[in-house]
């Protein structure tokens, strides 16, 4: 898929994961740190889960690729929908943000048709204090309160205010539950 090589979500100053670490040894070391951190994050999410969101490493056990699920919050056009996301963590995570994409097709002002998300904390506002859970919570709230000032999907941004009913229809049209095995 094309979204994989997209670096749009990366912070401007940060390097892509592959270039961030130069030597193999440092790369490994960094990788280990990232893995450890992600293990801890996972543990934290499992022991104190937040409602409506969940995330888990991909089925091959690679800790740097996660899948996440956001249940559409009530009182939003996305209520009752299960939205899948992919997380790709760089080797120097948490110093650079993860690349987050919607896998489920979603009609949203800040998400383009490839699933790319416009969210500041995934770009320049990223700090290592954020984690997967906070990112997911932010995205969850983004669903109910899109940032229409900087839309990726102009039509959606317009409709959000103008015609919620049509917006809802568009959302339902666009939505497609993906089944993966």
């Amino acid at each position, binding site marked *: 898929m094309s979204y994989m090589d997209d670096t749009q979500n990366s912070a401007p100053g940060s390097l892509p994961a592959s270039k961030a670490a130069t030597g193999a040894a440092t790369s490994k070391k960094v990788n280990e740190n990232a893995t450890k951190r992600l293990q801890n994050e996972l543990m934290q999410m499992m022991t104190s889960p937040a409602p409506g969101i*969940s995330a888990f*490493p991909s089925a091959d*056990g690679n800790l740097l690729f*996660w899948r*996440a699920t956001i249940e559409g919050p009530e009182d939003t056009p996305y209520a009752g929908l299960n939205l899948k996301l992919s997380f790709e963590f760089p080797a120097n995570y948490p110093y650079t943000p993860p690349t987050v994409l919607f896998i489920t097709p979603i009609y949203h002002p800040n998400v383009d048709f490839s699933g790319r998300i416009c969210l500041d904390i995934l770009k320049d506002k990223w700090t290592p204090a954020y984690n997967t859970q906070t990112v997911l919570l932010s995205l969850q709230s983004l669903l109910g309160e899109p940032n229409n000032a900087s839309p990726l999907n102009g039509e959606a941004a317009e409709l959000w205010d103008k015609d919620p009913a049509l917006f809802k229809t568009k959302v339902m049209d666009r939505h497609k539950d993906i089944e993966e*095995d």
Partner: protein
Amino acid sequence: MAGLVVASAWRQQRRKRVFQSVFSGEVTSTTAVAGVQYPDPGQGLGGSKLGSGAGHSVDPYLAPSSSATLGHSTPEPQPPHPYAPGNEYAPGNEHQRAYDQAWEVVTSRVALPASAAGPAPGAGESSPGLSLESLTAAREQPQSRRRRNQKVDEEREQFLQCLSLLENAEAVLPEARERRDVIGWYVSQVRAHFAMWVVPLLAGGSDTAAAAAAAGTLAAQGVTHRRHQRNKHSVDSTAAGRGREWSGGSQYDRHMAVVMSTIETLEGALGMYFEGLNSLLEGLRRASGEQDNSSFGMKFKRDIHALIANSASQGGVMGSVKVVLTKLAGVILGVEGLMVRLGSKKGPWGAPPAIPQENDFDVLAAKRKLGGLVKQLHNVGLTGERFEVLFAEVMNDMMSRFVKGAYAGVWAASDPEEGNVVGGAGTAAASSVFTTSRGSGGDATVPAATSSCIKSLKDWVENRYAQLNVQVLSWINATPMSLADLKACQSLALGRLAALRIQELFDIVLAWPDAKGALEDLKATITTTTRRQLLTENFSKALEQRLLHPGCSTLEILQTYIHIIKTFHALDHSKVLLGNIEPGLQLYLVQREDSVRVVVAGLLASKEEIEAAAKVQQIDEDERLQRGASGPTAAAADLGRREIKAQAYSTPGVAGSSTATTCKTPTTRSRQGRDSNPSTPAPAPAHRQGPVLARAKKVNKLVELAKLLNESASVRRAGATDDDQELDWNDLNWVPDPVDAGANYKRPKSEDVIGTLISALGAEDVFINEFTAVIAERLLGDPKSFEQEMRVLNLLKRRFGEAALQKCDVMIRDIQESRKLNSKIRRNNAGGPQPSNIPGQPPVLATPDNKGKSVATPQSSEKSKEQKDTGYHARILSRMYWPAFEKEHFLLPAPILDLQKQYEKGYEDLKSDRKLTWLNQLGQARVELELEDRTVTVDCDTVQATVIYAFQSSPDSSTTPVKKAVDDLYLELQLDGDLIAAACDFWARKRVLRKVSTADGGVFVVLERLSDENVPVGEDAQQGQAVEEKGREKEAATAGPKEGGAKKLSDKEKEKREVYWKYIQGMLTNSSVTMPINQIAMMMGVLVIGGFSWSHEELQSFLGEKVEEGAVEVVSGGKYKLVRKRENV
């Protein structure tokens, strides 16, 4: 005739069997040669010969293996001869007839007798056949015949003439086409005779020997059985008779008799054979005038010896020879006496036993006897290769037995003894050379390693063993021993010693440090990889059998382990051997839950305990000296006594010592229970585990560790620098790394018992965690100084680093801080609330828990106002750094609760943002009880104090003692019933309470006057009560903590299941909608911090539960899938 033929056929078969088994190829080839050589198929009379051969035996030696012909050709003078002259010959062939007549005369003269009487047709089988007597008689016969012949001179003359006629047949009787070789005929005749008569005798001898070997009734049974089996055998009845006769005598005598009779038989037979041969040869010499046929005699002798040697079956006569040789060699080498010592187990333990001197009377007699025997055997040809092999076997056996007999259990490092015998005859020349040190190993650098055992063993080999070898070999004209052979012998003997020591190693370890001599032996002898491997294998096996079983307490195992470490360090500084035997032990220790605890408790043992242990050891030492040297086997015998002593010492050691808080741990408690249980060290199993038990009973802690820790502080500092250096070029004691060392092997310098032990207990953090737990317990238990703990902590820090033991630091600081805080709060409370900013206050790291400690006097709480301020101390624990404590809920006595609240307030004034969580059950209290006739002061824990407080008499009802039931207290205190019962029992033991009834979980009454103790109160007061209560108390004491542990565990487990379930949910939500169990397990393994602790089965059953709950479903391919919740869709 038919009967004879049948019988003969049977015998032939049997003989064939013997021949085939012994030298099958040879016999057939002999007959084949005879067949080719002697009969001449090209002769004109071939047809008639063929006919006669088919009918009767014209030519006896044509078919020497045929019994029928042999039976006929046996030289019976009288019976009608089958080939009387004129029977079959063509009338014109006078030459042939003359030749045959001459042949007849010659052969009948030198023919060998079958027995004294000669077999009448058909009677041969029923008669006892050839017994010793008959054969001897048979030997006599030719002599008597010769005498008769000397008288009847013409017979002899005729014989000689006939012989010369035969010899010169070519010239004299040219017409006689059918000529035969007399010598060849005789040889085959001898063979046939030997096979027919002597071999069965030898075999019979073997049977007899076997029968004799079997004892008593068995022998009789065996004999009858054999008789049934082979009732046609003529020798049988004789053999049976002999077997019965001999079953009474000693085995040696019986076998000696067998050997002697065999020799006699063979001598007789040989004499007979040579008699005939000599007369033949003499006649031939005369006839031909040649002198050269003496060489033929030699050849014949060699052949016949080979025949004898081959016929003497291994299990038969040679078996008896072996027994006899063993006995005689045993006497000569002094092994016999050693066996006696070994059997009685009474020999002195420590010094090698005295070996009988070389010029001892018995030895000399045996030597003479052996000499005679061997020479005789040599004469009859029984000293062939087989004899040499046999002798080698015997000598081999001797060496094993000597080593075992002389050195088993001889472990002391005795001062070098004088060699048993130096010099002596025989190998005098060799012995002077042989005294050079053995050079087969790499131990030349360690001259001190030559222990007394090794020295005496070498002497023995040189002066006794080799000498006997040389003598016997010279008697039988075998290749004599060379100097290299002797060296090989010596190193062989040392190998045996090594094997012995390896067998004994476990006992040697137990006897440490008394068995240093044995270690020296072992050190000097385990020079090859094979031996080292054997050692580790054997020792591991012994460990498993004798130590690593449920019958040994962890303490015993650990103590033995310490001995093992020390022993192996003495044995092999490189630690490679130790490393090889350790895995099994470590694996087992890891399985023992309390092993870490025992080690930690040992490390923290107080000085008092060390001294107590030393005292016990000293007494043991004295006792042993008094009783004389006591072997390891004897150690088991006085097990009972030691045990009693151990108990006597353990009482002051634990209860009296103020720091012995670890006795509260469940493990130690259960061990105390075992100590008082008389059935545990039953004497019967003790003989195997005896030494271990006896040792372990002395102390109930690994005080050795504490000692080592204290000692090693200085030693290790010196050693540490050595360890770092790669190579010390000036180290003259340098030896290369052992061959079986691993790749990354690094030679350690010190024995480092503690380090080895700790590393044996698994991961470092396991040890540290346990250490932390023990330290926590001790810190909470004892209010005084923590010198010992601090010291141990510092020593451990040096080993593990500061960071690993940070928790302990924090804990100790917590306690110290708490003290400061206590006084501060007290001051503040006394002087009213004050501003809470205290300069220099270190930040408390987390929300502190608290443990209340109350010094309360429940009976007199109203009178001491000032005690409220001074008596209440709390310890503030930083939660994250202490082991998790469960909070036990119960209601504190009201005055204490007030104090607690005051304290809490004072604390919160000091540290505004912190809250205290009280752990009431962890405190201690000093209770002063004012009873009617006495005042009791007891230090106890808070639960016990609370319970006794409930018995406080209210002012109005002071006349009658307070009486309460456990169930009432349960409601009153909201405390666990078991704990209440345990506390009541505690007070009952202190003679403060008295149990009057078992109703309502037990009813207790305050014992106001000691004189009331035996007054029966209520219906249940009975004599047996005290016993019952004690039993209950113990039960409660042991059950209490266990239950708590189990509960905690299940809580933990529940928590774990919850977390795992979340993981699985997350996995099935996000990673993949359906997953097989293997993948789930794999993911869990990767993702769960600290590892996924479930087995595949556990996971499966867990998922099965979830399927039942309806949370998960199983879809195609056995994959699991979350059941979609429908509410949102």
